[in-house]
């Protein structure tokens, strides 16, 4: 195989078909950027999950004086000291529960509330006696929430059992939904990219049928005849892959550091780092290189017979 000969053929082929090459590059770049974005989003979700699941509690809210009037479960009045002690003892007996069991007093609850919502107009109307006492429990296995809920939900003095994880799960579901949408879009772009590649290769093979015809007759191997077309597609795909890498890096910068600067605004979230993005790039490049090559090979099987 003479490299120089093949390279010059590739250059000629790509230039002859500039608009088509451009379309291939753009569609490959977009589909790969979406692919990389979906991967990164998944990583973000899972890193957030480990971070947050570690911090969230199952809260057992206890009845206060006000609840006695409007919450049926608390009809018997505010929680008594004995009930509290009993709940605490039962919690500490459960295997699924991590020790120690924390107790949040009304004052602490009020303080936390003011910290979180102090600026909002509603916060001014809240008084400490509207807050509830609660037990804050961490579970060894966050999936075991049901065990705690069934054990305590109906009990005297318990107003409600709340799994904070379910609040987070809504967020994660949203993010997963976005992920699915990205993958769906990627699939669509991928189909477009593949069809464009097949078409480009077909046009390229047609416009060079004189050359390939002669090559066949003088006994060039199928590999030698197909190589320029495959390299052409792979080269265009590689450019698309490089663009996709640029898009991913730019997106991370824009969303997290500069531009939207989510890192500053949402400092509670542990965002994925540059290394997470960088480790995805080789995969994106490899797919950008190989996928069009395979598509071209597939297209040629039909249009370049031996």
């Amino acid at each position, binding site marked *: *195989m003479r490299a120089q000969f093949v390279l010059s053929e590739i250059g000629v082929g790509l230039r002859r078909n500039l608009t088509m090459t451009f379309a291939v590059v753009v569609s490959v770049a977009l589909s790969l950027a979406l692919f990389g974005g979906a991967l990164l989003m998944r990583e973000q979700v899972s890193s957030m999950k480990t971070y947050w699941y570690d911090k969230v509690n199952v809260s057992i809210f206890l009845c206060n004086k006000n609840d006695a009037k409007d919450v049926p479960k608390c009809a018997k009045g505010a929680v008594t000291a004995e009930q509290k002690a009993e709940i605490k003892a039962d919690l500490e007996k459960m295997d699924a529960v991590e020790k120690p069991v924390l107790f949040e007093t009304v004052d602490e609850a009020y303080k936390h509330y003011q910290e979180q919502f102090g600026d909002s107009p509603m916060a001014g109307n809240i008084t400490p006696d509207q807050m509830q006492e609660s037990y804050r429990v961490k579970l060894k296995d966050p999936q075991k929430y049901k065990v705690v809920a069934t054990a305590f939900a109906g009990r005297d003095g318990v107003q409600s059992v709340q799994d904070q994880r379910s609040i987070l799960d809504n967020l994660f579901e949203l993010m997963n939904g976005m992920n699915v949408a990205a993958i769906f879009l990627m699939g669509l772009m991928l189909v477009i990219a593949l069809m464009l590649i097949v078409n480009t290769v077909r046009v390229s093979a047609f416009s060079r049928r004189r050359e390939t015809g002669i090559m*066949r*007759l*003088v*006994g*060039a191997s199928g590999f030698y005849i197909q190589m320029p077309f495959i390299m052409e597609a792979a080269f265009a795909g590689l450019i698309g892959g490089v663009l996709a890498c640029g898009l991913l890096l730019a997106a991370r910068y824009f969303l997290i550091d500069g531009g939207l600067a989510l890192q500053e605004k949402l400092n509670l979230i542990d965002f994925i780092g540059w290394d997470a993005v960088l480790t995805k790039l080789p995969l994106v490049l490899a797919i950008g290189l190989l996928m069009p090559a395979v598509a071209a090979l597939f297209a040629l099987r039909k249009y370049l017979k*031996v």
Partner: protein
Amino acid sequence: MIRFDNVSKTYPRQSRPALRDVSLDIEKGEFVFLVGSSGSGKSTFMRLILREERASQGMVHVLGKDLARLSNWKVPQMRRQLGTVFQDFRLLPNKTVAQNVAFAQEVIGKPRGEIRKAVPQVLDLVGLGGKEDRMPGELSGGEQQRVAIARAFVNRPMLLIADEPTGNLDPQTSVGIMKLLDRINRTGTTVIMATHDQNIVDQMRKRVIELEQGRLVRDQARGVYGYQH
């Protein structure tokens, strides 16, 4: 060199066979004219030798190989022993004369040194010495056909297949081309030439094979074009 044993070829979706029950032998070093009206099966005959088509029935042997048993990936190797020339030259218009000839060697991976030596040699042989850097468009029809012959012969094939090589040329130029093919034949290369040119066949007095509606109707050593064609 070439042997057809009861070869028939029917193309898909066609009821009439293009070639019926043809049997013949062509020895190494022979010069053979293939004559017959359009649609008589000449092209099919040549396509079978090049293994662009496979026989529907019977056996085709080329260079001692049964083409029916030759696997696809071995076909290029087999074709390197064959040279092909067409009525319409089929040169690459954006390459010079020398590049056109070199192309046939480049695409089968011949080393550059060998190409640099072989191309001027074969161009001298076909009488185009000094025209290496001309473009095909600048040449006359006869000269273009000489380039095509040089390209077909540069890899020193055992067999040269020429499909009406003089079909687009005036009689005088045709004579020059025939002299060239004769010279190539004298180097030991077998030549099979399909033609409609009565004068040439009559003058050369070589073996003539005539096809009519796919059948072999005449196979004559030192023959003429025909009786009333």
